[in-house]
């Protein structure tokens, strides 16, 4: 089991979700986060250009069994490539081993609980 955490542009949430659902991954946790990478997004307030030092991003968490790691990563990769314009700040995917999963309602553990 792996835990896949992806930090993506907030504007790309819709297309990433669509790609994930098409890849058969619908169980997902999404949160608003702010972060600082190499990205610089310009905003304009009364003619004054402002580059926020923390930019809003979206954090996606998906717990998957081994055979779903590749489809999930592929879906996120291809979805974030579309309409991206090649600018810095597309985000990152982190994958880490997952020790245990427990489903609260039934008490199931491990792969079945994912």
């Amino acid at each position, binding site marked *: 089991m792996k835990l896949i955490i992806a930090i993506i542009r*907030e*504007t*790309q949430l*819709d*297309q990433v979700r*669509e790609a994930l659902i098409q890849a058969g991954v619908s169980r997902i946790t999404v949160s*608003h*986060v*702010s972060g600082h990478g190499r990205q610089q*997004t*310009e*905003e*304009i*307030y009364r003619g004054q250009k402002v580059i*926020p*030092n*923390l*930019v*809003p991003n979206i954090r996606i968490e998906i717990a998957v069994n081994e055979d779903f790691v590749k489809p999930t990563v592929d879906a996120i990769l291809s979805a974030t490539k579309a*309409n991206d*314009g090649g600018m810095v700040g597309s985000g990152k995917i982190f994958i880490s081993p997952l020790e245990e999963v427990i489903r609260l309602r039934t008490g199931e553990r491990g792969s079945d609980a994912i």
Partner: protein
Amino acid sequence: MKITQRSLLLLSIILVIPVTEILAADTPVIDTGATAWMLTSTALVLLMIPGLAMFYGGLVRTKNVLGTMMHSFAAMGIMTVLWVICGYSMAFGPNIGTGILGGWSGWNSDFVLLSGIDEVITSGGIPEYVFSMFQAKFAIITPALIAGAFAERVSFKGYCIFIGIWGLLIYNPLCHWVWAGDGFLFNLGAKGAIDFAGGTVVHISAGVSGLVAALYLGGRKSHPHLNMRPSNLVMTLIGGGLLWVGWFGFNAGSSLSSGLSAAQALTVTQVAAAAGAMMWMIIEGFHQGKATALGFVSGILAGLVAITPAAGVVQVGGALALGALASIICYLAIMLKNKLGYDDTLDAFGIHGVGGIVGAICLTFFIRESWMTDAAAVAGGSWTILDQLGVQALAVVIAIAYAGIGTLIILVVLNKFVKIRSSAEGEMKGLDHYYHGERGYGMINPN
């Protein structure tokens, strides 16, 4: 000494009174009561536009809230400037042209930049400046209403140019036909097609144009399979409330007086809004098991839209019926929309178009006796409900056809020069950032 003083006073009074009476016959005297109410109404109708901005802004997704509110605010700028340059002249100048285009629009070069009305008092006793500014607010809100139909997917530049041209070619002529003294719909039948405050001019024209634009531009990306939830219904409710408040200026101000007809319009406006809201709540309660807040404000709007053309001629019973009827039919229209799957995003057609049609047609059955008697006298004998129904139906059909076809032509031609629909990138990133470089809901994230 005292006697001479008194006789001098008497003499001066005798001398002065006839002089002022003669002056009064030449230039209308300002009716301060009517003027005060029309100033208030003008401000109230302006209040509807930020109200509409909040109403629409709360209904779109977080990434489009500023862009959507800017549609209303941009209309305040663009339409006001156009109105004083040539809009007022086109709408309220005397008929121009002959033959088939005769009376298509008005024109009076005195009205350009309103220069000719600097000191004019209308026969109703209000300065013409006030009338002109009151009417300007209607020219602002109408194109702003259209924006609801293609929200979340229109380029800002395309929208701005579109509403400018739409105002000149669709709104001004329609306004002239229905409200100018020599407009042909104003003089249709015995006492004209009834459109007290803009059922055809404002709501039907905006609703139908919105529908045409929504169909022409196509739906939003991922519509309808992706759920798109409103960003902030609290703001929508506040906006809906402001619209209700502003509507008193819209309707009761349209009597252009401060008297009985203003009172009649004010009363039925309140009643129809309440009846519409209540009916929508009841329908939703039975149909979905829950009365939603968005449903309630939708009902308010449906009722207000339906009473708009009728406010001058119906009584309280009619207002109750029109408000309730509008909610029922608008509710069905929106269900039908969802079934057909086209993307009239914020139901500009579903509420304003359909509600306006319901109001303009069905008001015929609730006209007060005295109006029908007057109409019969003008027609020279008899004037029946059926006669008036024909006049109303004709006015509605003309408004639908003119707005619909005209909008389609404008869109097709304009689209050759400016892309009206937003780029896919802009739509995905959100109008706020892409077209304005700002964020609406900054406080959601720490920065």
